[in-house]
């Protein structure tokens, strides 16, 4: 009896916990980076919906996001008003570089938004379709240059998996890394790489301007407004996305986390959040704590496998 009462009281307190008074969001990246935009999007939604009025975004670039992670872990112990944003890259980076910290050292709280990866070529490329691309790749693997972000990035893993499903060695994928999205688009437009990968938003302006074409999307279903098949339809069973999520410090108890959880639950249901997702072309990728942590574990083990085959794990 006592046990149930306590449980009820506990459930009640967590359910009615008000969002925190103030929030500080640590961004593992510089201003303008993908994670920075996500953090500022969260800030904007929380403020304009009046969920949390005092929101501060702190940029900590460096070390593939690991400088931010390590600062967060050492200086925010027990602080329930501080959150950290993270993305697919934050999972992959510790795999390619033996870093002293990883997402295992924080408490992932919710996955929020994301974008499915797409494969694109310039408008007048000889490559007509994904089938055509894969046929050319199988005939002469080295001749296809696949452009994407940094080594070990989402695109690197995505292309390697695609190559593997096509029955080739992941290492045969001639991946050409780029320091930023702008340069990926440039490499596609001037044709120095055969195909490029990235989020739809990276290429949408060029696609609308008639300068690029989308060959396929790594989404479970076709994306609205984009005339391109899914990889699944074409027989390549890959769903791959670049996602953004939010974490808190590992030292916090369930009770400490309750206000933050309430804040996220209110935000993901708010109008401004959904309005903003639509404006920026992000998809609603909300996953609550337990599912999110499982998702990260799955992402990590899949990435580890492919990165080992690529020979760039440590």
């Amino acid at each position, binding site marked *: 009896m006592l046990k149930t009462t306590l449980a009820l009281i506990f459930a009640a307190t967590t359910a009615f916990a008000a969002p925190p008074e103030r929030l500080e969001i640590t961004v593992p990246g510089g201003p*303008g980076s993908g994670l920075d935009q996500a953090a500022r999007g969260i800030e904007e939604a929380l403020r304009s919906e009046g969920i949390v009025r005092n929101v501060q975004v702190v940029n900590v670039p460096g070390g593939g996001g690991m*400088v931010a992670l390590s600062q967060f872990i050492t200086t925010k112990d027990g602080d329930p008003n501080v959150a950290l944003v993270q993305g697919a890259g934050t999972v992959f980076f510790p795999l390619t570089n033996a870093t002293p910290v990883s997402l295992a050292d924080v408490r992932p709280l919710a996955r929020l938004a994301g974008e499915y990866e797409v494969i694109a070529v310039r408008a007048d490329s000889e490559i007509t379709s994904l089938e055509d691309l894969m046929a050319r790749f199988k005939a002469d693997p080295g*001749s296809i240059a696949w452009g994407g972000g940094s080594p070990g990035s989402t695109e690197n893993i995505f292309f390697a998996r695609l190559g593997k499903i096509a029955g080739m060695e992941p290492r045969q994928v001639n991946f050409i890394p780029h320091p930023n999205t702008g340069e990926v688009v440039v490499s596609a437009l001037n044709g120095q790489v055969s195909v490029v990968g990235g989020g739809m938003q990276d290429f949408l302006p060029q696609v609308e301007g008639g300068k690029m074409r989308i060959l396929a999307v790594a989404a479970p279903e076709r994306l609205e407004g984009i005339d391109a098949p899914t990889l699944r339809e074409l027989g390549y069973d890959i769903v791959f996305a670049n996602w953004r999520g939010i974490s808190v410090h590992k030292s916090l108890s369930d009770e400490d986390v309750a206000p933050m959880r309430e804040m996220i639950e209110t935000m993901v249901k708010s109008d401004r959040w959904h309005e903003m997702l639509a404006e920026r072309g992000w998809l609603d990728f909300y996953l609550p704590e337990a599912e999110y942590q499982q998702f990260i574990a799955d992402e990590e083990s899949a990435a580890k496998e492919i990165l080992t085959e690529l020979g760039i794990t*440590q």
Partner: protein
Amino acid sequence: MLDTFFALMGGFAVALTIQNLGWSLLGVTLGTMIGVLPGLGPAATVALLMPLTVGLDPISAFIMFAGIYYGAQYGGSTASILLNTPGEAGAMMTAIEGNAMARRGRGAQALATAAIGSFVAGTIATIGLTFAAPLLVELALKLTAPDYFALMILSLATVTALLGNSVGLGLASLFIGLFLGSVGLDPQTGQSRFTFGIIELMDGIDTVVVAVGLFAVGETLYTVAYQNGVVEKIHQIKGSVRLSREDWSRSWKPWIRGTLIGFPIGSIPAGGSELPTILSYSLEKKLSRKPEEFGTGAIEGVAGPEAANNASAAGALAPLLALGLPTSTTAAVLLAAFQQYGLRPGPMLFDSNPALVWGLIASLYIGNALLLVLNLPLVGVWVKLLSIPKPWLYGGILTLAVLGTYSLNGNSFDVVLLCILGILGFTMRVFFMPIVPCILGLILGPMIEQQLRRSLAISQGDWTVFLTHPLSALLLALAAAIVLLPIILQLTRRRASQHG
């Protein structure tokens, strides 16, 4: 052409309201202030201000952002000249001659040629942006990895003159720079190199930390160690603060040449501001009638790089406005700002939102003019800084260097790095090792490596790509000519004199 002109006039109509002029003034003032502090750059400032501008009309917000962007270039040169603390990579070359001029009592002239040169370059480059952005971007897009590689090699060949008097010491300095540049992640495989397990080193060493460490901290330590007893009057202003007739005649050509180098290179996607300022500096040194003055305060060495820096800043906006491509950090932040307003920059932006684009471009002209008006009268005030007693001045410089470095990433590790690099800069001075080659190695090394390895990855290891790409072949031939011609000429002259 005429359409563009009318569109621009429409832009002026938008930007020239009292309200928007106010935002522009606020932007350029803020920009100048953050430019003076090394570290906090225009990108971070715009990112910080973005949430505050939510309720603002997008045109007003972008006019302010443009002011910050241009203002930061002016502020950066002021700090470089007076305090030897280049706040951003593009201001490093300005620091070399600019600070030497300041120490010879010609700080006012250095500031003036920088301000007027920035205005001239900024205006010409903005005109270029207005009328030639789409064309320029189309040309810039054609450059592929082998072309970039050849361009870097050509740059390297042209800057050998900057190695200094002793080739041995110059090369040693260059190799220190190359080593510092190779710290971080291997660009092709993503594996860490020379990071000693320190995660802060994984993204490489920031150019600004190296420049401030070697220039400001190194110089300060050296001065304190070796010239403490000497009563120095060199910081006193000599004569008028205005540019003399000779200063004008030595400045205007470098301004134009700097603009012509800076604008096109700034507009190419991997161009940046470092390459044009280095090229401009070495070109001015070669063309100067008084090359011996370089290193001790040659006005051409301020006028050229400063113009090149501002022109490249305008050029960097071309890919953003014409194609929606963020090719610099500031451009990436501006792109995020566009998105905040639900705008999508790209090939369609000129059609879908002409008032905004042309208002923004018009505000670049206005911001530039405001900056000149703001900065020229301030020259007299700024140079007063130099009459501060030396111990205080150097104390102030060190404080500013540390603060600026910390504000770069908000990380105390960078401050430790700054101290180490300061000691390195001091040691190099003790051994008469020139600093400039080290900076060249640091900047050009990683660029050359990345483009070389990217070329070879795409060509699957075929080295002939550098010769089969016409532009690459041409640039490499030029580079070879620059290195080999003087040697051949010397040999033939010697032979001729032997025969004679």
